[in-house]
C-alpha cells in the first residue's frame, strides 16, 4: 500500500527530502496520518454552523476545513438554506420571490455562492507538519548546543537546543524563568535544526517539523506545549491563541490586537509602568470552557524604536541583550517585569491599536464585521466544533474598539477607564 502511494502521490519528494533523515518509522507514521486525513476529507461534506453577528451579517463556520465566512444579506439567507441542505431549486425559487429576481438572476446568484463555497472547501494540508507521533527514533543529542532548565508555576522543564541559532529563537523569551538545575525535570523538550528544517520533540513525541522560514510556527508550538504543561490542559481544552497583548487589573483584561509593528508590546509595557499588569505579549491563550484569558509568562519583546521611551521606565532594558531576528527582520530586547503568577480573567474588550505620530488619541467603536475580519486570520482557533462555537459566542459578546494614539498619558487614562467601566 505504501509503495503504491509513493508512486502515485506527488508528495514523494516531501518524504524523501524532508522526512528521510528521521527514519522509516516516521515516514510510515506520516503515511498513516495522510491516508486517515484523506479518508476524512474525501468522505464528508463539511458541516456548516451559523451565528448572527449583526442585523445584516452572519458568521458561518465550515467544520471540516475550519474556515469562517462572513456573509452579508442577501447572501446569508442563501447560506442558511445551503446549511440546512435545502434543495437547490427551492433556494433559487426562494431568492426569486424574496429578492424580486428573475429565475435566471436567482439561479446565477445561488450558483455563484455555491461556486464560492466549493473553491474554499478544498482542504489544505501541509505535508511537513506532523503532530504527536510516537516514534522510536527520538534523537539522542551527543552535543546539544545547550541544555537549559526552566521552572514555571512549579513545573520544571529540561530543554535541549540543537544549535545556537535555534536557542536564540526561543530561549530569550524564557530566560527569566531559567533555573540552575532541576532534579528529575517534569518534561524534556528538544528543539533541533537540520539544514533548513527544524523539529520539536516533547517527552519522546515528535510534535512537528517545519521549514526554517516557518520557524514562527515552531516558536508557537513550543509556547503551546509550555502552556499545556503549566495549566495541565491539553490542546483541545483551549479555544484560541490570539496574536495579541493582554493587560489586566487582576479582575478582568483588555486585549490589544493589530498587525506586527503597530505598537501592542510597547503599549503593554507603558501600561505596566503605570500600574497595570501584563497577561501575555504576542501569544495570548483563551480557555475553552470558561472563555477566560490566561497569563502566559514569556517576556515582552521590546522593539528597537521603543527603547528610548521605555528605558527610563525599565532601566534593565539598557543592559538587556539585543536580539536580531533575521527571519522576521526585527531587532528587539526582552523585558520581564510583570507578575509571574498564574492568572485567569474574563475579557472586557478587544482594542485594535495603532501608533500614529501626532494622532493624540482617537478611540472609537468598531463594527463586529471589521473586528472579526481582522481577528480570525491572525489567530489560531481550535478546529473542534465545541470550541469553535465557544469562540463565536465569546467574540460576539464583546465590544470592539479602534484606538489610534500618540499621547501615552491619554492612552493610559482611557484604558484604565475602560477597565473600570468608567469610559
Amino acid at each position: 500500500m505504501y509503495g503504491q502511494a509513493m508512486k502515485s502521490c506527488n508528495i514523494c519528494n516531501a518524504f524523501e527530502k524532508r522526512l528521510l533523515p528521521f527514519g522509516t518509522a516516521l515516514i510510515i507514521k506520516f503515511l498513516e496520518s495522510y491516508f486517515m486525513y484523506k479518508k476524512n476529507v474525501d468522505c464528508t461534506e463539511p458541516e456548516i454552523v451559523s451565528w448572527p453577528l449583526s442585523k445584516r451579517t452572519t458568521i458561518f463556520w465550515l467544520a471540516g476545513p475550519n474556515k469562517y465566512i462572513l456573509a452579508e444579506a442577501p447572501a446569508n439567507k442563501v447560506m442558511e438554506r445551503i446549511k440546512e441542505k435545502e434543495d437547490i431549486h427551492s433556494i433559487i425559487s426562494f431568492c426569486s420571490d424574496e429578492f424580486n429576481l428573475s429565475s435566471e438572476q436567482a439561479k446565477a446568484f445561488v450558483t455563484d455562492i455555491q461556486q464560492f463555497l466549493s473553491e474554499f472547501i478544498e482542504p489544505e494540508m501541509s505535508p511537513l507538519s506532523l503532530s504527536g507521533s510516537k516514534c522510536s527514533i527520538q534523537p539522542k543529542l551527543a552535543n546539544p548546543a545547550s541544555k537549559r532548565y526552566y521552572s514555571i508555576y512549579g513545573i520544571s522543564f529540561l530543554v535541549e537546543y540543537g544549535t545556537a541559532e535555534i536557542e536564540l529563537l526561543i530561549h530569550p523569551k524564557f530566560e527569566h524563568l531559567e533555573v540552575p538545575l532541576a532534579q528529575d525535570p517534569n518534561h524534556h523538550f528538544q528543539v533541533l535544526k537540520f539544514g533548513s528544517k527544524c523539529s520539536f520533540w516533547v517527552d519522546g513525541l515528535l510534535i512537528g517539523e517545519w521549514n526554517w522560514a516557518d520557524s514562527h510556527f515552531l516558536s508557537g508550538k513550543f509556547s503551546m506545549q509550555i502552556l499545556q504543561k503549566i495549566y495541565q490542559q491539553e490542546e483541545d481544552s483551549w479555544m484560541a491563541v490570539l496574536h495579541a497583548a493582554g493587560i489586566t487589573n487582576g479582575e478582568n483584561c483588555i486585549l490589544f490586537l493589530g498587525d506586527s509593528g503597530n505598537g501592542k508590546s510597547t503599549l503593554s509595557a507603558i501600561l505596566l509602568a503605570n500600574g497595570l499588569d501584563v497577561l501575555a505579549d504576542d501569544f495570548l491563550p483563551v480557555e475553552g470552557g470558561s472563555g477566560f484569558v490566561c497569563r502566559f509568562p514569556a517576556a515582552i519583546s521590546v522593539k528597537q524604536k521603543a527603547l528610548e521611551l521605555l528605558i527610563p521606565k525599565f532601566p534593565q532594558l539598557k543592559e538587556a541583550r539585543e536580539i536580531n531576528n533575521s527571519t522576521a527582520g526585527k531587532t528587539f530586547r526582552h523585558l520581564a517585569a510583570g507578575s509571574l503568577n498564574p492568572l485567569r480573567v474574563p475579557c472586557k474588550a478587544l482594542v485594535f491599536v495603532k501608533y500614529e505620530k501626532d494622532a493624540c488619541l482617537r478611540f472609537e467603536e468598531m463594527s463586529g464585521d471589521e473586528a472579526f475580519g481582522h481577528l480570525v486570520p491572525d489567530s489560531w482557533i481550535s478546529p473542534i466544533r465545541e470550541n469553535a462555537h465557544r469562540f463565536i459566542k465569546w467574540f460576539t459578546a464583546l465590544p470592539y474598539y479602534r484606538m489610534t494614539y500618540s499621547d501615552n498619558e491619554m492612552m493610559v487614562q482611557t484604558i484604565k477607564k475602560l477597565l473600570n467601566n468608567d469610559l
Partner: protein
Amino acid sequence: MKNELKQIEVPGETITRKQALQKLGKYVAFTAVGTMILLSPKKSQAESEAPRNPGGRPFD
C-alpha cells in the same frame, strides 16, 4: 488572507476590493464576492512574524 481582504488583482492593474465592488455597481448585492468574505484561521499556533500586507475593512 489579509491580501484577499485588501486587494483583488486583475490583469494589467491592481485595484482595491472596494474599487472592484464599485465597478460591479448595483449587481454586487447578488454576487458572492460582494457579500461574502472567507477567513482562514492559522493552521497552528504561531508567534509574530515579519509584517505582511495590512488588513482591510471586510465590507468597505
